[in-house]
């Protein structure tokens, strides 16, 4: 009886070793398989593939004030976007000008966008009734100087399509 038990124990001892080794080999098959098989590499070579690298259409890269070919944007300084923005990344600064009819109008002076705090929540773009905003595909933002991240989105000399009375 005792002998049988010993034999069993010894058998278990070797069984264990066998099972262990088998499981190890199974694992090695996976990694080894990938090593041998061709075309398994999924790496995209980022700086090399810049020419072909295309973000998805919806990609939220950086806020953009849409300018048309006449250097016109359609922001009428309603400030909705700035109010909707949860972390104050947008500041719409206007100045008052004397309109043709003598009434003073607000026109956009600076559309300031703080890229450094923007959390890309996407609340601002649909908030704008004038469809003046969109996200562009740019993602290469890194700079050495933090102040470079505060951007003025309206291009110099741009004018507004629709002027709010």
């Amino acid at each position, binding site marked *: 009886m005792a002998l049988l038990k010993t034999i069993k124990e010894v058998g278990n001892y070797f069984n264990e070793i066998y099972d262990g080794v088998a499981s190890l080999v199974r694992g090695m098959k996976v990694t080894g398989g990938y090593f041998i098989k061709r075309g398994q*590499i*999924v*790496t*995209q*070579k*980022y*700086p*090399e593939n*810049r020419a072909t*690298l295309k973000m998805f259409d919806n990609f939220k890269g950086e806020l953009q004030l849409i300018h048309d070919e006449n250097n016109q944007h359609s922001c009428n300084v309603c*400030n909705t976007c*700035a*109010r*909707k923005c*949860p*972390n*104050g990344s947008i*500041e*719409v*600064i*206007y*100045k008052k000008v004397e309109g043709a009819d003598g009434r003073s109008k607000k026109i956009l*002076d600076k559309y*300031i966008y*703080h*890229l*450094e*705090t*923007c*959390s*890309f929540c996407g609340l601002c773009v649909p908030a704008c009734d004038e469809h003046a905003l969109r996200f562009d595909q740019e*993602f*290469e*933002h*890194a*700079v*050495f*100087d*933090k102040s*470079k*991240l*505060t951007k003025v989105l309206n291009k110099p000399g741009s004018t507004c399509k629709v002027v709010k009375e």
Partner: protein
Amino acid sequence: MGVDIKSMPYEDFNDNETLEELRKSGSSVMVTSLDSIVNWGRSNSVWPLTFATSCCGIEMMAAGGARHDFARFGIEVYRASPRQADVIVVAGTIVRKMAPVLRRLYDQMADPKYVIAMGACAVSGGPFYYNSYSVVRGVDQVIPVDVFIPGCPPRPEALLYGVMQLQRKIKTQKMANQNMEGAGMMPEMNTSTEDKSRYVQPAENQNDKSAEECKPNNSPA
């Protein structure tokens, strides 16, 4: 010379002005060929410290993953000990309790050392800029930062781009003043006895440059 990065034209980089300034600043000694060898070595082997605090850390991991593969730049050797790391990628929010720790880690790194602030939080506090009682508004208040990568979180490609920016910055350095550079513009502080007041100071309000009349409108609807 000196600041070319493989497969990426010089003009396509942001912030070339600051880089040019960096190249000019410092001693008047020109970047010698010895410097260029040294910088070649340093810039191609920036080993990051394993340090991730939150969401951006996941994107940093993704950048190390198979799809984006950090390793192509030779920077996959994550070192858990700050003694052996070259760059600390601050990926995530830094709060006031963490700031002394971060500072200590930075201080314990061996020179030359670099800092990448990854993500809006590390750059400026990001989504927690306003109203938060504990988030430090930008790690540049705690440690000197070399490269800022905005985004929340930045794509892995954006991180890779930031790394290339760092490589460019490294390539402008000079051996001659290495004992001043990199050590940072901030004196080391003893975190064990340090008074935490420096993080308690309200950061300069970024809205200062905005016109006065816009302020009232900025409150939440």
